[in-house]
């Protein structure tokens, strides 16, 4: 086993969040930054996302996933970040000792600061409990995207998609363009899970029906999928009698949600949010463990990669500061999500800096406002012409507003 390595900042995960955090950590003065990636290339999921639309917020132009990734790959290389590829972190301790396994052997890194940027995984058939037989032909959308765009493989001819998450919608279009027949998309919720633009561009433009409040109640076929039975569900997700419909297909594609890959965080015993399933962080994206930070989809599942990048850049800078100076702003003000919001992030702030809060609403709303309140007074009100659970809300609150905080408590809620 090799000697112990030392790093100012170690970044676990080389996807969009890891790349941005690594580049900015180095830019902010961390001398040695090591980014550890399990795959043979950096970029994570961007490598398989050949459609465009990435970078409209950060670069004001629509790039493909690989193009977007390449910009950050160049940046980390130019700035001198060390990238360890085909390297898997098998253990992380509270004193920031990282065990890495790779073709070189077992190595350990002692880091001044650690950024968790492991992204997320797709929810599976087993997790949602789709009943029926267990044939070939049931795939998650992300896996199919890899097969089609990286390995050049076609998974089937006639496809039903369960779940209207963005990857599923994008794959509906992609598979149609490649010559497959997408029979329909079923979504168990009464509203789509993907963003509105993707419903239009990926389904409506190709006349693919979207059935809301509908799910797969049976998978058929012993060897390969031969069909699925769909049924409508009531408000409590129970199957509605008499609504079963059978659809012939050879493939069932699942786009039913993403789960943060928090196994390393769980092993540390970090304070976690039961809503986001990510770590609870302060304004520096600092977790409950000293020197351990979290950003990107392992913290909260983002709708657009640009926002994961922006979040990760701030995290990288904060991690560098922690590693080089040893301290971060103290955060005494608690931020809580109130009516209409599933969560708001960060959970604590100092009041000394402007903050970009991120949050998601419980349901679709029109012409309402998100308000930041303290002691019954409104600190900031933001008019929201349209809100949907599929879209993350970002609201900047200037530091001047925090002067009026009472009892170190801020409540954020949706108001008529």
């Amino acid at each position, binding site marked *: 086993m090799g000697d112990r390595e030392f790093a100012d900042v170690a970044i676990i995960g080389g996807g969009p969040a890891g790349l941005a955090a690594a580049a900015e950590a180095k830019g902010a003065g961390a001398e040695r930054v090591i980014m550890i990636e399990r795959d043979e290339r950096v970029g994570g999921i961007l490598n398989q996302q050949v459609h465009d639309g990435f970078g409209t917020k950060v670069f004001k132009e629509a790039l493909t996933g690989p193009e977007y990734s390449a910009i950050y790959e160049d940046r980390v290389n130019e700035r001198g970040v060390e990238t360890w590829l085909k390297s898997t972190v098998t253990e992380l301790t509270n004193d920031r000792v990282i065990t890495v396994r790779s073709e070189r052997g077992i190595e350990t890194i002692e880091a001044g600061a650690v950024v968790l940027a492991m992204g997320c995984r797709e929810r*599976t058939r087993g997790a949602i409990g789709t009943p029926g037989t267990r044939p070939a032909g049931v795939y998650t959308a992300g896996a199919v995207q890899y097969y089609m765009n990286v390995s050049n493989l*076609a998974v089937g001819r006639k496809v039903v998609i369960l779940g209207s998450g963005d990857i599923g919608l994008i794959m509906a279009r992609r598979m149609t363009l490649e010559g497959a027949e997408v029979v329909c998309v079923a979504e168990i919720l009464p509203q789509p899970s993907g963003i509105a633009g993707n419903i239009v561009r990926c389904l409506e433009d190709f006349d693919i029906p979207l059935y809301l409040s509908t799910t797969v109640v049976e998978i058929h076929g012993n060897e390969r999928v031969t069909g699925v039975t769909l049924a409508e569900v009531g408000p409590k997700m129970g199957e509605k009698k008499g609504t079963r419909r059978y659809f012939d297909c050879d493939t069932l594609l699942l786009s039913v949600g993403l789960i943060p890959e928090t196994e390393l965080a769980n092993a540390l015993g970090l304070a976690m949010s039961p809503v986001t399933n990510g770590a609870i962080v302060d304004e520096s994206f600092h977790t409950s463990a000293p020197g351990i930070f979290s950003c990107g989809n392992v913290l909260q599942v983002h709708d657009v990669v640009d926002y994961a990048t922006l979040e990760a850049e701030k995290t990288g800078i904060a991690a560098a500061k922690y590693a080089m100076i040893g301290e971060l702003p103290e955060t005494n003000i608690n931020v809580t999500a109130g009516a209409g919001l599933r969560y708001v992030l960060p959970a604590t702030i100092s009041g000394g800096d402007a903050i970009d809060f991120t949050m998601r609403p419980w349901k679709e709303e029109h012409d309402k406002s998100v308000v930041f309140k303290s002691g019954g007074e409104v600190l900031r009100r933001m008019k929201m012409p349209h809100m949907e659970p599929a879209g993350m809300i970002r609201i900047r609150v200037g530091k001047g507003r925090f002067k009026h905080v009472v009892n170190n408590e801020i409540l954020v809620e949706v108001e008529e």
Partner: protein
Amino acid sequence: MSENFDVAIVGGGVVGCAVARELSRYQLKVVVLERASDVARGTSGKNSGVVHTGINVPVGSVKGKYNVRGAEIFEQYCEDLNVPFERCGKVIVALTEDQIPDLEVLKEKGESIGVKQLEIIDHDRLKEMEPNIEGAGAINVPTAAIACPYTLNIALAESSAASGVEFMLDTPVTGISGEQGDFELETPNGNVSASLIVNSAGLFADKIARMVGVTRWRIWPCRGEYLILDKSVGGMINSMVYPVPPKGGAGLGIHITPTTDGNILLGPSADYTNDGDDVRTTAKIRRQLLAEAGEFLPGLAPRHVITAYSGMRPKLVPVSVGGFGDFVVEEVPEALGVMQLVGIESPGLTAAPAIAEDVTAWALERIPAEKNPGFKKTWSSVRRTREEELEVIDDLIGEDSDYGEIMCRCEMVTKKEIVDSINNELDATSLNAIKYRSRATMGRCQGGFCGPRIVDLLLENGKSPESLTLKGGGSWLFMGTTEDLRAEGKALRAGAK
């Protein structure tokens, strides 16, 4: 072409493969005929993995005899074959006070059959042993153990193959003619001649029996659904947790079983069906399993479930008759030369090594043979590294850098283990063959990350996309490349015009 074997074993489940291994100690020509694309694909691969003590079987039964003997030799068996085995113990829990007398009855019965160290424990002692389990009291069965059922089945098969037994996969037996000393077994892959036949066809043993003129048995398939829980909650129990067996039921009741890999199984349910292949899972049973197991384990939540599967019991008695049907381990007068192993349901895994001893003795009486110098007493098909010390792993990586590449993050399976699984002794080629040898794709992401990488590896090894299957037969994974799909789409559109 017809090959001549001393013994043809029909069915590559744990019983058939245990018989193959015992026979491979001798210089006999043995073939195993398996209809699926790999061994362990029926009842043997999908059960609780429990090495039973015998407490649940009637005194004086065939089941009892083989259960007790099997349990005696099981640990050594697993050690020789490098199969995970753990003597984790079992508690049979009375949920309410009124079930306590049932525990006394069970204890007495268990002791009479020779189960050692049984003790009745009260609520407080149960809480000490199993803090997360609710119950009024329990029997503690410290000698009960678990093993990895499919790893055992595969190791039995592979060690037998390495010792000289021939395996014919994807080879269902469609007819049998001839008589003792000169049987002819028809298969789609050609006829096979054998002097003796072992009928270890599990769910289809009644059909094989009929092919040699024995009509007295009928198998009543009884499906058992399971849920698998994530390893993150694997620590919720320390030992197996069983209910007091339901009276007249088809099974032992829904139990909570740790696996040797650190997951927890909930199940199995018991639903009779007409089709031994009908291994579907249902929403109803999922709810029922969570509710029933939840009575013992209040901390259980639906989000802990990573997947569901069904096994199938080859029961010899219909639902109307009730729970118990004894094992058949005998040669019957109307078909001499055929060893009938019929109705081998629970505790068949535990009993398999013991049944194999008797079947081998039976075969040797008819065909005396010398010891096989090529017999592989010990065997390890895939060296797992998940639980190795870091120093050991580091050395292994020095020998072969593929040990340094973790392909399946959830189950910590390296590229080397996947390559070893691909190059398996039986030449089983499906994705499931790799899964059951390496555990890749069995974790919480169910292959979301490693599945595509394993496919890439298979393609690099020269496989064509069309040839890849999930589990053999018609379970194709890819219709071809994206170019093939585009070409097909074009042709369809042209045809439509």
